[in-house]
């Protein structure tokens, strides 16, 4: 399937792309646009103004996708808190990891193309998922 989002990907879009590939569509193909009018007819838009999969009622797009697709894995919701704070910084959640991840992503987007950013962040989010999965099983921070 084709998915379209705004060019110049940052935390929310990178996390969404990872979520889509891992949990919704393993063969996802991403298109980056600068204007919502450029979204191809056969693509699902996300994190784009006016799109169904976007910010709603104070949620970031990552949270919206989790809700709309009934993904209730608590590990994904823990990651959603970090993505939310890194993206919106509105202190809805306590996520001290967020500012660090935000800076890392902003720096990455300065030296990478959107495709490269998704490639690098794919591994980062795989790692974060594993970290919080183990943390949840152990009930404390894993080594």
């Amino acid at each position, binding site marked *: 399937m084709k998915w379209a989002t*705004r060019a110049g990907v*940052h935390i929310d879009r990178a996390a969404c792309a990872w979520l889509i590939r891992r949990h919704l569509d393993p063969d996802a193909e991403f298109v980056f646009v600068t204007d919502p009018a450029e979204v191809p007819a056969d693509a699902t838009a996300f994190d784009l103004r006016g799109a169904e999969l*976007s910010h*709603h009622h*104070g949620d970031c797009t990552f949270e919206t996708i989790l809700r709309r697709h009934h993904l209730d894995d608590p590990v994904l919701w823990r990651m959603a808190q970090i993505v939310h704070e890194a993206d*919106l910084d*509105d202190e809805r959640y306590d996520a001290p990891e967020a500012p660090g991840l935000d800076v890392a992503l902003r720096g990455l987007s300065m030296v990478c193309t959107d495709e490269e950013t998704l490639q690098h962040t794919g591994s980062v989010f795989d790692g974060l998922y594993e970290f919080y999965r183990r943390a949840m099983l152990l009930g404390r921070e894993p080594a």
Partner: protein
Amino acid sequence: MARTSRPGTPGTWVLLCYRVPREPSTPRITIWRKLRRLGVAQLADGLVALPADARTREQLDWTADEITEAGGTASLWLAQPASLASERDLAAEMAGARAAEYAKVTAEAAAGASRDEAGRRSLARRLRAELRRIHRRDYFPPAQRDHATAAVDALVQAIAQPEAEPIAEPVAEPIAERQEQPS
């Protein structure tokens, strides 16, 4: 997407023109808080501005969506002030608003200097979080920023010194010897 301003010409600003229904008041207040948090310059009733970059455009984009969801109307514009002077006034107004916020942090840090160690540490933690919040909406950093940072740092630096004393002591002797030598 980046600002295309040559020196001597005003930069690009992103403007949000909006109207939110008076009732219900909860979304109206949420939106007002969000805009304040972004540090917007209020140009007129229902018209706010930020210097345009990828982040400010995105943040105002989402705010516009939220206003629409709340039953209001919102449109986003990219614009250049017609003169450098009006841009300077706008920047000065925004810097002034941030300066007042930094000054408040400086005053709070100064007032807390007499607290015990634990009190100063927890105050520093809270004020540093506040500084981070102000930094995020500080587009034209005023001198008060450095004063505030120094005032908060001083709260914990005062703690670090007594702890360092036992390590510093053995060094004291060679220094004293050196002082005896003619310089």
